[in-house]
């Protein structure tokens, strides 16, 4: 790229300079303007071929090798092309009249005479006729194709895969169609939003694919004016009718999607059969069934609510697990102790009593006082120190 830019810059500079020179040079009577104009054909912007410029007058193109003298532009042996422009010029010159190019072409091309001096015309005509016969009588159909043959416009036969021969062109004609391959139609084409009304008067953005092929080529060829367009219109009508029968959630959440698809397929087939269209609907697939973009937020809030509900329930389950495990733990602990208690009830009871009392009393302040009314005289520093509710009297 950089090289090219440099080259263009130099070229512009060169031309700018050469224009001044050319002006003087154009005056020269030795070179009539006609000749110059002709030479200019090769360079639309007025660049002179190097060879036509008197030696040493114009600046030289640094990429161009010196040509073989004045007027050598045409007769010179093809030099190595050094720029795009030169390559094109070389082509033109080679292809031009009297050019040294290897391919004879242009208006001066003449067919060489036949050795016996006769005209080429019959041979050419014969060749054309042969090509015509071969191309209009032999028809090779691949395994997925069929063709309808008409004789002067009248349906004659349906031909299958393989090599088939018919009468030549104006008499019999063949129209070949791919019958087994399944054609796919996307509705809508592209990514536009296609809203349909559902049974609960909501809107759903739906896109789907119709898959179909030709079941009866004869009918397909002659029955409908526009079979492809008909398939699309029938699909559209059937899809809208089917979607209108179900609720939004059934379409969107996919619970009845398969049902809708087969419904549409059946409807389409019924209509296309009624038209004798020769078309077999293979299937209808709903690609996308989304809420309209305008109410998408509301649908996302439903999802959020669903997540909230799920979270609530899993929290509750965790709590439930905890409660039950705790109950089982408590029950098991009790059962174990109870089993021992049953073996020696009194001893166990006393042991537990003392153990508990030990624990309780060792960790708390204790006052032993006689029963009766001297509580009020007692200097009870602990009681005074602390709030009254902490004081507990264990009565016998």
């Amino acid at each position, binding site marked *: 790229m950089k090289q090219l830019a440099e080259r263009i810059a130099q070229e512009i500079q060169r031309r700018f300079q050469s224009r001044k020179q050319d002006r003087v040079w154009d005056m020269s009577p030795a070179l009539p303007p006609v000749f110059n104009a002709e030479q200019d054909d090769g360079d639309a912007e007025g660049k002179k071929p190097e060879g036509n410029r008197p030696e040493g007058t114009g600046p030289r193109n640094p990429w161009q090798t010196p040509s073989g003298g004045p007027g050598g532009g045409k007769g010179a042996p093809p030099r190595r092309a050094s720029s795009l422009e030169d390559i094109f010029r070389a082509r033109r010159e080679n292809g031009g009249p009297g050019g040294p190019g290897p391919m004879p072409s242009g208006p001066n091309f003449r067919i060489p005479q036949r050795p016996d001096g006769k005209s080429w015309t019959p041979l050419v005509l014969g060749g054309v006729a042969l090509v015509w016969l071969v191309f209009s009588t032999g028809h090779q159909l691949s395994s997925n194709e069929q063709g309808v043959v008409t004789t002067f416009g009248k349906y004659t036969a349906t031909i299958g895969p393989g090599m088939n021969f018919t009468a030549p062109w104006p008499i019999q004609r063949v129209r070949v169609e791919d019958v087994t391959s399944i054609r796919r139609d996307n509705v809508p084409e592209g990514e536009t939003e296609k809203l349909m009304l559902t049974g609960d008067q909501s809107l759903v953005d739906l896109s789907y694919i119709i898959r179909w092929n030709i079941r009866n080529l004869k009918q397909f060829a002659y029955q409908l004016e526009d079979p492809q367009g008909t398939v699309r219109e029938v699909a559209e009508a059937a899809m809208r009718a089917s979607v209108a029968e179900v609720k939004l959630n059934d379409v969107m959440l996919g619970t009845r999607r398969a049902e809708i698809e087969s419904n549409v397929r059946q409807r389409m087939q019924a209509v296309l059969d009624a038209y004798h269209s020769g078309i077999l609907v293979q299937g209808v697939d709903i690609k996308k069934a989304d809420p309209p973009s305008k109410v998408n937020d509301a649908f996302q809030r439903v999802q959020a609510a669903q997540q909230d509900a799920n979270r609530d329930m899993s929290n509750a389950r965790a709590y439930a697990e905890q409660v039950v495990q705790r109950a089982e733990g408590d029950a098991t602990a009790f059962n174990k102790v109870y089993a021992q208690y049953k073996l020696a009830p009194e001893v166990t009871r006393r042991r537990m009593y003392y153990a508990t009392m030990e624990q309780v009393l060792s960790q*708390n302040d204790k006052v032993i006082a006689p029963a009766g009314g001297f509580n009020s005289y007692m200097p009870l520093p602990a009681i005074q120190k602390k709030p009254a509710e902490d*004081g507990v009297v*264990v009565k016998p």
Partner: protein
Amino acid sequence: MSALFQDGIAPRAKLAVAGLIAAALVGFSAIVEVPESQQAVVMWLGDPVRVINRYKPGVDYGNTGAGLSLRVPFLETLVRVDRRVLNLDMERQQVNSSDQQRLEVDAYARFRIIDPVKMVRTAGTAERVQEQLQPIMTSVLRQGLASYTFQSLLTPERGVMMEQIRKALDIEAREYGAQIIDVRIKRADLPDGTPLERAYARMEAAREQEATTIRAMGQKQAQIIRADAEATAAKIYAEAYGKDPSFYDFYRAMESYRTTFANPANKSSTTIVLTPDNDYLRQFRSQKGQ
């Protein structure tokens, strides 16, 4: 060709050749080719006299009369009419349902020229028939849909309605030699603006309601799960403790004392006032007494 005339052939022969050529040309112009997809009305000096390859139901392709036919050169001319099922598209337009809801409807009809002579007389070409039928279809559809509610336009009842509209349109179409095969609503949409906005608002409200319901259901389920667990726990406790309620009372009391008074998490100590006749001090007392 020019060589024939230059090579000094007698004028009579020239004439004969010219005559032959003329005859061939006339002969060729007497033969017409009608493809399967067309029917041709033969006009005798502009007056339709017969039809080649006329559509008849139930006749299979190949037996219909398509192919080569003869006509009287120059006097008989041909008007070619499509024989296939043609499309009649209605322009998208707003229709009022019986409950005064506006609806944007796109419909199509499929028709076939079954009486090409009549068609040529009344309309001339199939395109003209389409042009003539389009406004009729629009008005028939408008009238037809106006007697149904919005909701029923969306339901299977639509099939019945379309059949009625087809019949009504067919009566009109017969005047042009056409038969309406099918009328179908391609699209029935809410028009832009208020109706569409209202539908969106309704959808949003429905979603809000759904969201609230889902949350409430979740809470209810959670509550039930908790209650179930508590019931299970109660059952487990009852089974275990019910074996000996008095021992349970004692066992639980001990546990409770420990939790209340000897909880290591609770550093503040309690002052416990014991009377000497406390059961715990019984041994203490009797030792003193001894």
